[in-house]
């Protein structure tokens, strides 16, 4: 079936098999491999993308459901070589070890800060509660998100 949608700012026309999952469209057809498949059932958050600004598990969305919507993957967050402040904060706080969960965590954090630029500790914890990390742990991630929110505030 034919679908039209926006991917990282670009307008895309695609012809896809009916039951294709969004994550497969991204990884197989567009080679956007920053979106990872961990569990494939909506529990680990490694496949998180932003759909109309909201974090969703791309393993639980059909590509057919993209019709008329706008999507951002981790590859669409930076502006060329200029990283998004959230990405920069993750680097500065070294909130990365193996990196498998990082794209999902960064996008979950990005959507939190877009809605609540100055989040409470509880809001930060809830925002990343759908993203599992099995090596670094969450304290540096937590610190990175706080740093990003402060950078955001100071730049205003």
């Amino acid at each position, binding site marked *: *079936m034919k679908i039209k949608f926006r991917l990282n700012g670009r307008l895309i026309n695609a012809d896809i*098999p*009916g*039951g*294709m*999952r969004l994550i497969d469209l991204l990884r197989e057809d567009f080679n956007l491999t920053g979106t990872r498949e961990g569990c*494939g*059932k*909506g*529990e680990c*958050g490694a496949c*998180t993308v932003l*759909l109309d600004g*909201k*974090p*969703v*598990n791309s*393993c*639980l*969305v*059909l590509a*057919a*459901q993209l*019709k*008329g919507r706008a999507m951002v993957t981790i590859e669409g967050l930076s502006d060329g070589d200029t990283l998004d402040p959230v990405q920069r904060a993750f680097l500065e706080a070294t909130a990365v070890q193996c990196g498998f969960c990082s794209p999902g965590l960064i996008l*979950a954090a990005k*959507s*939190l800060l877009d809605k609540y630029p100055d989040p409470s500790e509880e809001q930060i914890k*809830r*925002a990343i*509660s*759908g*993203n599992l990390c099995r090596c670094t742990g969450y304290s540096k991630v937590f610190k990175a998100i706080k740093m990003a929110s402060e950078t955001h505030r100071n730049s205003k």
Partner: protein
Amino acid sequence: MTQTVIFTPKSLSEALEVLNDKKPVVLAGGTDLLVQIKGGGIPPPRYIIAIDNIKALKGIKKNGRKVRIGALTTFEEILDSELLAKFAPHLLEASYEIGSPQIRARGTIGGNIMNASPAGDSIPPLFVLEAHLILQSIEGRRKVAISQFHTGPGKTIRRRDELLIGIEFEAGDKSSRYFFMRLGTRKALAIAKVSAAGMLNIKNGHIGKARIALGAVAPTVVYAHGAQDLLAGKSLSPEVALLVANAAQNDCHPIDDIRSQAEYRQAMVGVLVERGLMRIMNELNGDGQR
């Protein structure tokens, strides 16, 4: 799944035609259905109708005393609703516990009801509101009490040409008090082991109507009839809360399964109901002091 034909109607009438002609599997937020297909619980369907573009099925409205929630309203939208914060605060408590931000951004209240899990978090709150479900087909519309809708785990009385379009309930007043409590293995992404919701009408310290519903302790969500009968006409006190909590334990028939054990569930029904009632009692006492 690559052989599956997907319909993406924009209007309700278009969707009802497809439902009537093809009897497709309905996909709302996808957070249950796509997991079940992947896990092999359901074979890949021949036809899927993805209804998430039908605007008429979204949103929360109040008309007179009737509150109507569109079937496609997501849990995130429920959490952001001032109307529901006022008239169904316990539904917000339940929505707060569901899944993760990713799941709440996609998962819908209609999908939670249609998935028909006895552990579905939105269902006990709707039971105590005595909510009705609105089902529509090309033949017309019917309203069903939520307590009549589920017949077992994963089973409902919906016909395959019907679509759940909304949920309706009568708004309470100043005398209405609510609670929702649940236990899971962890805070996020855990299906409830046991849950309880309550609604009490309390005037001058006396309980009028009382509704208590229990989740994950029977093949469907159930009312705790014995507990409700005990509450009527009483005043809330720690002694009454304990008595009612004990009665609620006899109103359920839990089983052992992958998430928990029957004995634990039965004991925790008592704990949750007692906590819920005590919270209402403390809220009322707090109000009195102000």
